[in-house]
């Protein structure tokens, strides 16, 4: 059975990078992976860095490396507010490795329980996820 399309927009601080009808969105929230089809229950969720998949159809899938953000599902459609969204092919593996290394250094230097430590942990999670996506795109 054909899936019902719904409008989905990906909005970043640098502008809108995707605004089309899709049949399925799959991403990851704080509580785990999530797939959204048409007429999903209204939702407000926090997104974690992961590979965002937007299904124009079952075979035509657009993917992004998605940073932290929020997802809002309403009867009008899906709005993804993310801090960054990159096409996997535009990711620079060397640069990401550098960033990951710096985050790990910052994490081991930070004192336990500080905001500094939480921040380094967030950075590490993000660069790890992006690196995985970049690796997937390259291999």
């Amino acid at each position, binding site marked *: 059975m054909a899936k019902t399309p719904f409008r989905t927009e990906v*909005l*970043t*601080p*640098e*502008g*809108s990078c995707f605004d089309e009808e899709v049949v399925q969105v799959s991403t990851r*929230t*704080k*509580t785990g992976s*999530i797939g959204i089809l048409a007429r999903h*229950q*209204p*939702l*407000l*969720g*926090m997104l974690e860095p992961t590979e965002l998949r937007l299904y124009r159809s079952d075979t035509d899938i657009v993917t992004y490396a998605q940073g*932290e953000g*929020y997802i*809002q599902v*309403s*009867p009008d459609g899906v*709005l993804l*507010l993310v*801090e*960054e969204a990159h096409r996997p092919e535009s990711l620079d593996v060397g640069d990401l490795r550098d960033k990951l290394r710096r985050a790990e250094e910052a994490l081991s230097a930070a004192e336990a329980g*500080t*905001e*500094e430590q939480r*921040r380094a942990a967030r950075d590490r999670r993000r660069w790890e996820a992006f690196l995985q996506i970049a690796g997937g795109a390259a291999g």
Partner: protein
Amino acid sequence: MSASQRDVKNRIGSVRNIQKITRAMEMVAAARLRRAEQRIEALRPYAGAIRRMTRQAAEAAGSEISGLAILRQHEAENSVALLLVTGDRGLAGAFNSQIIRAGLRAAREHEGDGRAVLYSAVGRRGVSTLNFRGKEPVGRYVGFTDRPSYADAREIAEELIAAYVDGKADRVEIFYNGYISPLTQEVRRETLLPLQQATILEGSDPEDSDHADAADDAHSSHHALVEYEPDPDEILARLIPDYVEISVYRALLESTASEHGARMTAMRNASENAGELIEDLTLEMNRARQAEITQEIMEVVAGAESLT
């Protein structure tokens, strides 16, 4: 051609070359300015959506958001962090120096009141000037002022937030060139932390609020059905720091637009000055040439007279 004429001619040539460069720089700055303006525009929908989401989450949370560490005012203000937003390059009129001047003036005020000052700087100009004055910045953010990304703003904001929450700074202020038009920029001084609750719940952008109210009305009937993942308090705890990130990002973008505007104006003035200089020098050269001709005629006439 006499030596003095050749001299003047060479000078005209070099001024003309400089004029070519300043004209090119003016054009480059104008193109970059347009891009920077577009990026300020591009931020608006995102900032508006974050604000609407915050309202929704705050309503659903139903609790006071003032418990968050970045909203809580520290009891005693013993140290202040100042973030000076400058550019990586000079040749932009007073763009960099006016920020540094304003920052140092504020630092003197704070120090006069017995508060320690921690400096951070965006842009090579700010970093090197602070170093030169022996006020070594703790945070140095360079290499992106031509085209700041949100990730740059996030890095800065997170470090400032960490300093505030971990008690290294009791207040954080930002100094940047606010963009008004290509010809006008103004130095702005804003308090980033503690974050003012008012900036969150009452939209500061008037153009957003109409839109937001309409959207709120449309969704209010669905509020009861909305599912939250995780619960609204936790979402709110992450939405609020985003305001600091967005404020820093907007300041970086405005500063970039201002820098290109200031450089455009500075380079236009330089091109005009070069034009005037060329006119003066041409006049001087013509005069020298005329004097030489007159001299030669006089010599010829005198020679002819001596023969008769």
